[in-house]
């Protein structure tokens, strides 16, 4: 009898809970898109990432899923201190539940810590450092789009297989560049290649001629550009000027977005081999998304970082819906890891215990001007690298969340 009473009470409480939740109306969610809105990485992420997040809302239709979602955005100016200050203000005062994008690894690593401290969620799309899911991993972070390890695997592995077995690195002197050089060096040596030298350049930097000359003098077969955005654009442009590729050396762009190649034009960048997780012209789903995006954003096609913000937002909202709350960041991320991922841009995939999102990566080559049929027709697909091979194996990252 007593047992029956207890059961009934428990049921009653549960039902009351349900009724209360209904009465409270939709679950509020506040998404903060934090990235570079004015500097070298603002075309890669910037306002385009906000547009992508808004598109995710349009497609998810929060009201039908019992959510009420709001989006805010800010400029971290590629400075970790500025980024952390905004993150704290967002979390403490403005009620932001999740920070999206955060291009620039040094800022991302800072946001990583703040997010863990406040038990919120950080879904990173734009930053590269594989440390986000390695030694610096947290139960509150998901690294969505790509990382230095996957880029190194893709481009590094492919170049060595094509005979590029001696390397010289031109490396942006901060967290991202160093991680990229470290990871690519590892892949090159593992495949039987050799690193003959490297030079660290100030970030950001506009004149690369001196560093290119050092690379030329090294006689390395491949010059690895461990930098991104405006730095890479300047380096590739000046490499063409100094006859680097004509001299028989190959350039490897270790992190290149389609917006960079669009700016360089195929004439300057032709033949460059690169790895990306997303390209607008992959399949019907990516094409239709990209057309919609271009209509909203001045005719520009989305970059991988922006696509990652879209897909990451979708998956986050699914997890919040399942949880019926966005309060507990670690719980939401655990839910995100539990649910398989599936979206139009990256296809089916999963989020690993260390926070790494797994999907295929693609090895592209920049088209020759004659092959390019339009302003945005930039890449031809060389190979698809399955997600399981593309990213660093789970047990090699040194993430404390991974047991065994």
């Amino acid at each position, binding site marked *: 009898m007593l047992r029956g009473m207890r059961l009934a009470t428990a049921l009653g409480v549960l039902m009351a809970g349900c009724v209360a939740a209904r009465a409270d109306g939709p679950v509020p969610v506040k998404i903060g898109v934090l990235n570079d809105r004015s500097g070298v990485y603002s075309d890669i992420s910037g306002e385009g990432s906000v547009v992508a997040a808004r598109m995710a809302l349009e497609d998810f239709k929060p009201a039908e899923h019992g959510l009420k979602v709001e989006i805010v955005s800010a400029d971290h100016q590629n400075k970790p201190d500025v980024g952390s200050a905004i993150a704290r203000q967002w979390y403490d005062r403005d009620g932001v539940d999740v920070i999206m994008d955060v291009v620039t690894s040094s800022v991302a690593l800072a946001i990583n810590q703040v997010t863990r401290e406040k038990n919120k969620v950080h879904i990173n799309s734009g930053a590269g450092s594989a440390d986000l899911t390695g030694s610096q991993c947290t139960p509150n972070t998901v690294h969505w789009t790509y990382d230095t390890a996957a880029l190194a695997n893709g481009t590094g592995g492919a170049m060595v297989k094509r005979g590029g077995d001696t390397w010289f690195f031109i490396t942006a002197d901060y967290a991202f560049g160093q991680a990229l050089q470290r990871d690519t060096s590892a892949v090159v040596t593992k495949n039987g290649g050799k690193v003959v030298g490297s030079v660290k350049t*100030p970030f950001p930097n506009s004149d690369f001629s001196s560093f290119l000359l050092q690379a030329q*003098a090294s006689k390395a077969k491949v010059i690895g550009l461990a930098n991104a955005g405006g730095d890479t654009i*300047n380096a590739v442009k000046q490499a063409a000027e100094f006859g680097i590729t004509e001299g028989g050396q190959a350039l490897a762009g270790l992190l290149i977005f389609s917006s960079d190649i669009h*700016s360089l034009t195929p004439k300057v960048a032709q033949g460059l081999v690169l790895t990306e997780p997303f390209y607008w012209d992959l399949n019907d789903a990516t094409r239709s998304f990209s057309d919609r995006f271009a209509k909203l954003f001045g005719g520009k096609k989305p970059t991988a970082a922006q696509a990652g913000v879209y897909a990451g937002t979708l998956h986050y909202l699914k997890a919040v819906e399942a949880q019926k709350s966005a309060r507990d960041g670690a719980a939401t991320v655990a839910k995100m890891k539990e649910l398989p991922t599936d979206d139009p841009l990256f296809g089916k995939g999963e989020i690993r215990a260390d926070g790494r999102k797994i999907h295929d990566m693609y090895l592209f080559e920049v088209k020759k001007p004659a092959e390019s049929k339009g302003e945005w027709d930039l890449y031809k697909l060389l190979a698809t690298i399955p997600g399981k091979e593309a990213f660093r194996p789970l047990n090699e990252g040194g993430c404390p969340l991974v047991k065994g």
Partner: protein
Amino acid sequence: MMTILGVPTQALFGQLLLGLINGSFYALLSLGLAIIFGLLNIINFAHGAQYMMGAFVAWMLLNYAGLGYWWALILAPLAVGLFGVVLERLLIARLYKLDHLYGLLLTFGLALIIQGLFRQQYGVSGLPYAIPPELSGGQRLPFMFLPNYRGWIVAFSLVICIVTWLVIEKTKLGAYLRAATENPTLVQAFGVNVPLLLTLTYGFGVALAALAGVLAAPVYSVNPNMGADIIIVVFAVVVIGGMGSILGSILTGFALGLVEGLTKVFYPEASATAIFVIMVVVLLVKPAGLFGKPA
């Protein structure tokens, strides 16, 4: 092969030459700044934005009017110089009687606005601008491959710097300018239109910045932040050379290009800071700058 501190001499020559090329940009930009400061007493913080505008106007001429590099070399400085003239008449001329700081704040604000507008319109990735066919290719020197265009930059900016210096130091127009700086009231009493002189000087300084922008368009990414990246260094050059010293700014520009080139060989991480270290040392030892007259 001979080496200096582990660096082959051949590589060193190459780096020195590259330093000279960067020095050309520093010299051309600091020259404009020095002229404007010397004659107008305005610290023109919009100089970087005007340099960027020069590069963008070159791109616009090519893409909207079909006019190539050589036309841009003439038209872009004219167009941007004219913009400078309008700016001077409408805004800057009102500040001559006030403290330096007001001019600095005004031009700094203008720079931010101009950069913001261009960023809004064109994004930051930059626009493509090819090297003119006449200057493509390069020379294989014993110690390095020198692209023809880089050689052209050094030669052309040297000529411009020398001509400008000669005009200001050796001609009657230059004498008017220098006199107007010294004592505007007296010069006006002699029947010289001093306000006009100042307007044209500002326009000329701005045109020099735009010229540097056109020169830079084929080698650097044409993007709205290109001026912001370089202007800080150029200000350091002007301070080291001595505020307002024309010859000082030219020589310091080239010399610091060389110093920066050397840093890139021996300790590349510090290449962005080397010039500022020199600035600190110079300010401690000679507060008026290497070529400046003590106030």
